[in-house]
């Protein structure tokens, strides 16, 4: 082996070409990004730059009460024909006064401004006041005066080109701070908004985490790969979803009306909330014994299902009662608690949220339940029925299921694009779906298990990826339109983005868990749910916590700019001040963001260390 081989000519050429290529890329980059140092060197730019940097370096947080000493000096430019109008100021006074030499001048001339008897060590602007009104607030010039220990100063200034026959003025305002410093209005506003920002991030993170956890299991390949069902079961459970949701929605609405009719006073509220849960618990304990060694009889099964259904309805009734109680109590508390009124507000809103969400939750629960019951029915029938019967069942159910899915998709398209032609959005999809279903039913062997899990996994992943690619800022715009400008829109936007991105991160953690414990728990006879709870969950707790923290961190940072589009939080203030060129106020807000972000970073690292 010849290890110290001399570099060949070809190698040198390669290196040379590579270097040349790199240079080319960089050169083009300069062109594209418009690197221009000439601009940087120009005096105008430098001056503005220095001004802004100085403003940014002095965030508007503290201020003092100030006293001002204002002196207006009558000044003629150009010099008047009658020099007698030029008054010599009284120099034998203890009041502050200024002398301008020469006492009148041509526009554009440089004059000397001297001040006497001012407070020592104060600063303030020296300005030319155009027009013959000494109270005019429009001033010209940029000079600043600073008095020495005797209270005197000398400044030279250029007279602006504003010739006038009338008297104009040169004004000196010297300010000095008195008393203790106190917070500015900007500081107060910033404080309010940064608190809003932190809570916006907190709510969005909590909302996102809660919903991302179940999603992450569906989006995990290793869990879904093993989910396989025969066609009969898939078709039945697909049909079960919308049917169950419809039934559930109607039932819950009925319960809601019932609750509204009954629960119009607080005693009924309290009685329902205290007594019924006990009854429900009793019923559920009876219907779902902890250990079941023998298979129960058919009538027993029906009785149990009945009790569970009844308990569920009662449960939703309790929810409605709870909502009504919370809203009533909240209203009262908000009025009577004074500065703790926000607790009442919270209670009222919680009641409102429960009242709004209960029908949807009920519909979802009913859909899921009916779907899983029908699915199990399908599973059993495909295990027990003779093959021709299964085949017939599949030929009926599969087209129906797929046609239904297609029609639902068609209806969504109709809602979005308003085609207004039922051929495209109703009959067409129905026919295509039925055709595809028929094809599938014919092609599939009756007892074959189809990898439905992988299909669900792929669909979930696709939706998650599509939603994740929409920036939270864009989502905020949509939500601002839906719920109005303010932090609530920001919370929803960040929450949605949190759901999709956490679901992805979480599911990757689920995919990387050890398979051994999973196998061991399965071997004990645990079903899928139990396997997830006892083998998957313990393994994913640490990464889930650390990702949630990380996401909270991101959300705090995001919530600082979500206000740019009206999503609440400190971003609104920041953008406003930047647009008003009020850099000192903007600087205060940036400082607040920096402090909160670094605090968050510190807290999350401490928590991670403690928990994980």
């Amino acid at each position: 082996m010849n290890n110290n081989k001399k570099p060949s000519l070809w190698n040198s050429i390669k290196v040379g070409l590579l270097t040349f290529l790199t240079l080319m890329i960089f050169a083009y980059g300069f062109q594209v990004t418009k690197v221009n140092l000439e601009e940087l060197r120009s005096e105008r730019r430098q001056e503005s730059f220095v001004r802004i940097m100085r403003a940014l370096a002095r965030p508007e947080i503290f201020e003092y009460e100030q006293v001002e000493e204002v002196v207006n000096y009558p000044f003629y430019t150009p010099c008047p024909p009658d020099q007698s109008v030029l008054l010599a100021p009284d120099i034998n006074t203890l009041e502050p006064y200024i002398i301008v030499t020469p006492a009148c001048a041509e526009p554009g001339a440089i004059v000397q401004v001297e001040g006497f008897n001012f407070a020592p060590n104060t600063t303030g602007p020296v300005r030319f006041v155009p027009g013959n009104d000494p109270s005019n607030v429009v001033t010209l010039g940029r000079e600043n005066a600073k008095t020495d220990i005797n209270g005197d100063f000398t400044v030279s200034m250029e007279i602006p080109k504003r010739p006038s026959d009338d008297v104009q003025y040169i004004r000196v305002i010297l300010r000095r701070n008195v008393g203790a410093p106190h917070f500015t209005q900007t500081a107060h506003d910033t404080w309010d908004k940064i608190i809003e920002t932190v809570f916006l991030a907190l709510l969005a993170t909590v909302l996102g985490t809660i919903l991302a956890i179940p999603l992450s299991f569906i989006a995990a390949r290793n869990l879904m790969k093993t989910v396989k069902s025969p066609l009969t079961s898939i078709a039945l459970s697909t049909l079960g979803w919308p049917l169950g949701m419809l039934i559930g929605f109607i039932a819950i609405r009925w319960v809601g009306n019932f609750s509204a009719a009954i629960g119009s006073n607080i005693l009924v509220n309290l009685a329902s909330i205290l007594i019924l849960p006990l009854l429900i618990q009793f019923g559920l304990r009876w219907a779902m014994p902890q250990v079941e060694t023998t298979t129960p009889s058919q009538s027993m099964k029906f009785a149990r299902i009945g009790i569970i259904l009844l308990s569920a309805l009662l449960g939703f009734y309790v929810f409605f009662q709870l909502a009504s109680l919370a809203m009533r109590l909240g209203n009262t508390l908000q009025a009577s608690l004074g500065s703790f009124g926000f607790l009442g507000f919270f209670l009222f809103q919680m009641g409102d949220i429960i009242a709004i969400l209960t029908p949807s939750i009920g519909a979802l629960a009913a859909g899921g339940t009916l779907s899983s019951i029908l699915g199990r029915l399908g599973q059993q029938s495909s295990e027990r029925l003779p093959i021709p019967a299964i085949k017939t069942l599949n030929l009926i159910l599969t087209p129906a299921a797929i046609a239904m899915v297609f029609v639902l998709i068609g209806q969504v398209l109709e809602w979005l694009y308003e085609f207004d032609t039922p051929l495209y959005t109703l009959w067409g999809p129905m026919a295509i779906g039925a055709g595809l279903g028929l094809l599938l039913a014919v092609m599939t062997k009756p007892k074959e298990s189809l990898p439905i899990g992988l299909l669900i996994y792929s669909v979930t992943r696709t939706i998650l990826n599509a939603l994740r690619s929409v920036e939270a800022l864009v989502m905020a715009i949509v939500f601002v339109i839906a719920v109005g400008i303010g932090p609530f829109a920001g919370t929803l936007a960040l929450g949605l983005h949190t759901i999709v991105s956490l679901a992805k991160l979480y599911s990757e953690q689920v995919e990387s868990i050890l398979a051994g414990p999973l196998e061991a728990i399965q071997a004990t006879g645990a079903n899928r749910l139990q396997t997830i709870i006892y083998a998957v969950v313990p393994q994913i707790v640490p990464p889930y916590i650390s990702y949630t923290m990380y996401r909270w961190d991101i959300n705090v940072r995001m919530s600082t700019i979500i206000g740019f589009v009206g999503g609440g939080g400190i971003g609104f203030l920041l953008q406003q001040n930047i647009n008003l060129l009020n850099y000192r106020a903007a600087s205060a807000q940036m400082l607040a963001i920096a402090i909160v972000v670094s605090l968050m970073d510190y807290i999350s690292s401490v928590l991670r260390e403690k928990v994980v």
Partner: protein
Amino acid sequence: MLQIKNLTKIYDGGVKALDNVSFDVPDGQFLAVIGLSGSGKSTLLRCINRLIEPTEGQILWNGEDITAASQEEMRRIRRKIGMVFQHFNLVHRSKVITNVLAGRLGYINPAWSLINRFPKEDIEKAIKQLERVGIAEKANQRADELSGGQQQRVGIARALMQDPQIMLADEPVASLDPVLAHSIMSHLEDINKNDGVTVLCSLHFLDLVHRYADKVVALNEGKLVFEGLPKDIDDEKFKEIYGRDAERVG
């Protein structure tokens, strides 16, 4: 009586892990399964509780066809088949007692598992099983704080919680030193002799086979190459099972 009939497993990649394997295991027998790594021992054991779906063939247990059982029937069958693993397969972050209680999951209503509740009797039973394998004092430690031998004992306690009639042991001592190996094997022997549990145990070391097994089946590239008593494995048989170049150790 467990009957394996013409069992064949072909993995998705086309690898034939089991090739037409048939044998019977009477109740209460201690059966050792031997063979080289990759000969199909693990696949065979996992086919019995259908952690791996066999491609063809039947497994009959007291006349019931395990391979044809539905998901619900499988839950009932699996809870009577305990299993211990080479790498113990404990849930590391859970407490020892939780790992042991997991053995009862096949009996418990899944709705109650959602809120992590076990009946009182089960908790007492779990403590008893831990006492039986001699590590009751570790009950509240995290599983990954235990040594290898202790972890395998937790694995055995978990399997015992199932009140098993069959115990599958997939190279239970391959990750342990020889002293611990004997301790673990004697636990299995105890379960076999005193509780009357049928044990199917895959093993690497022939001295363990001679010491503990009633009967031996040997696999080579998925085929059953030997079925008989441990003492019948002579040098000729040995070379047949492990290949011409193999040397006996231990």
